[in-house]
């Protein structure tokens, strides 16, 4: 019986600006130094996602030096709600500053982790097709990524900072070297845990970057604090 190993894919992602917002400075946005696994997952999901699998980020490589930029924007300071008939944004305007990243480029590695039918949430257990297998999804992702197809435009932290991407074949291509910078960035947001849909929990992990490479631990490992 062959052991099934989740296939790992690599995407090179770049953009003019990025903002991976720190939770404590969410109002006057300040970005983290590097991309969060949460944002990286979102990029993969924007290209391809089905309830049959989840993306597990394994490695992040930083290809451009970390540069900052400050911008001041007119934002809205209230939430729209279904219970209220309207929200006049002009009455709720607030001017806020953001400290964001400039000219970013990353190489993201992620595994497509297949979820067996029985382990999926109940609402996704309606139709079961007989020939469902992980290879099918792997192929679909590869096709879509190489064509540049996506469900929605991938973005870097905030929707206004769009990301461009391309599929990278780590075996055959000559890869751009990551930056020669090593640092301990302290605890950073790993992702949100949606096991309990009503009250998602934040997960944190300690980021160590060695010569531009960050090894991201598995979601269920002990390095991820919940």
């Amino acid at each position: 019986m062959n052991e099934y190993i989740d296939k790992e894919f690599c995407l090179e992602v770049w953009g003019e600006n990025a903002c991976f917002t720190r939770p404590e400075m969410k109002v006057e946005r300040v970005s983290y130094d590097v991309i969060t696994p949460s944002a990286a997952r979102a990029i993969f999901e924007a290209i391809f996602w089905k309830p049959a699998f989840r993306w597990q980020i394994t490695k992040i490589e930083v290809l451009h030096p970390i540069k900052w930029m400050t911008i001041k924007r007119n934002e809205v300071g209230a939430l729209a709600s279904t219970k209220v008939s309207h929200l006049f944004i002009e009455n709720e305007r607030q001017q806020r500053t953001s400290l964001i990243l400039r000219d970013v480029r990353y190489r993201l590695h992620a595994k497509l982790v297949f979820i067996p039918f029985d382990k999926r949430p109940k609402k996704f257990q309606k139709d079961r097709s007989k020939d469902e297998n992980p290879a099918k999804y792997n192929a679909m992702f590869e096709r879509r990524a190489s064509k540049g197809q996506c469900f929605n435009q991938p973005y870097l932290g905030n929707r206004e900072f769009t990301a461009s991407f391309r599929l990278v074949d780590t075996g055959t291509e000559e890869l751009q070297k990551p930056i020669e910078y090593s640092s301990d960035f302290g605890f950073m947001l790993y992702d949100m845990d949606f096991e309990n849909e009503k009250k998602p929990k934040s997960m944190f992990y300690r980021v160590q970057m060695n010569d531009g490479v960050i090894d991201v631990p598995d979601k269920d490992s002990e390095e991820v604090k919940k």
Partner: protein
Amino acid sequence: MIIEALVQYYKDHESLFPPEGGEEQNIDFVIILRKNGSIVSVEDRRNPDGEGQLFIIPKKVDRTSGKLPTLLWDDLEYTLGAYSKASARKGAQVKCQLFKERVRKLSTIFPDHTGLKAINLFYEAYYNSFIETEEYNQLSESPRATLTFQLQGDQTLVAEDERFFAYADDEKTYEGICMITGENDFLTRVFTPTPVGGQGKSKFVNFQVKSGYDSYNREQGYNAPISKKIDCYFSRAFNRLNKKGSPNSLLIGERRYVFWATSKDSNIELSEFDLLFNKLMKEPIPQKVQEVENALLAPKTGIIHTDGEQTFYIMGFSQTKVRLSVNYWRQETVASLCQQILQHIDDLKIVGDKRGEHKFDSVSQLLKSVSRVEGKDVKIQSNLSERLLSSVLEGVPYPVGLAQSCLRRILATLHKKDTKGKEEIGVTRRRAAILKAYINRKNRFNNHTNNQLSMALDINNQNLGYLCGRLFAVVDRIQEKTMESTSIRERYMNSASATPAMVFSRIMNLSNYHLAKSDKIGFVIMMEKLKGEIMSKIPSSGFPSRLSFDDQATFMVGYYHQRQSFFEKTTEESK
């Protein structure tokens, strides 16, 4: 990264801070009690400015909504139920009740404490008669004043007992993972205020309820899980660094900056580099550049106690009444920072000081020289200060806005007469230095290293802007010496620097008339020679019809260099 750095600062200097739960606060009035609770006197501890005396006492509670008493001290509403408006009477009574209960609760934990016993006795037996007195009525006029208790014969307040500090905060909050330490701990719901420059309750981290900041139905501080301990640490560190008169905090233009270098030796309260940095950015006292350079080379030569591998943090921020917003953040090793600053100083070096020693210009002075002066105010462009500071620290070209403002000020101030040193007139040493540095840094960054401007007059420089500037200086000097007038400078500098072709033929003619009037043969010959030398370098196509912005800046530098060379020559002649 910012909070972590502040927490590290706190941990390195932990001995400077009071135990957790304690805080420095102003107390206006102190009631002296006997052991049985009766009053000896009510002391007014306010200084002539109206501020109360400072004590280290339990932390003030955060009262955003609802009635919450601080432990063992508070304003007169809570401590004595004082009220100024009749409508506040009922509320004040409730508040006083809450305060009394809090003291009672504490005394159950410390049953033998005489100070606490006295306070409880005061409320039970003597409070009701006290509120009838004239003294009480006088106090009621300012219900916001703070009050606390002291036992007769004691040197310290009851509230100053450090054992009580742990009970200052008895709010039950959720437990969770603190996002700074990764440990499970009690999270804080609201954060300690970090007001800088009198902005009241301004905080580092602040989420207003239902204003669009709540994520997944979390409220307030739970949106960013930080433990109470960490909140205490970083806010204390921040407040200390920004205390009035602290050398770690600077106001440059309209931006406030706070900076600190990590110090491994916890006995040194302040890193020596912090003091140096403060000088570099702010001090207007003329200092020799050589001294400053020596100080910056120190990490290599070891003159100051600064380890080059220490990290230096600088944060630029602005504050509103509600929260703080971060505009700039940089962390760098002291060694590389010194490198950048040395480069900046080197770029600014220019000829033209008395006694031949280079003067040092702080960033603050540079900004002042390119800004409009209205009476006592200097109106610096809003983000120029942070752009200049960031380009100095990062080693990139100066902001174009700096050079533009500089040029504009030069042309705008030409007409002004003596302003008693409040504002610089025309092309001063500082302005010429700024333009020279701007050009050089820009060219270096773009790898055009053969276009570097020198410190003093460079007769081999073929740049058209430079040559036009030199020629203009010559013509200007001729008029100054022969006619004792500077009208050519005032009227023609603007057009000569922007559109030389239209202007130079006219002013060259004028200078011929001026020279003809002079009877000092030596002077005439020297000027003619100089004119000839400069003209020979101008190409056969003649004066350029327009000069680019960079060339206009170079014009000013050329003008300044040539002019300075006249003064050096005259000092030589006078010897």
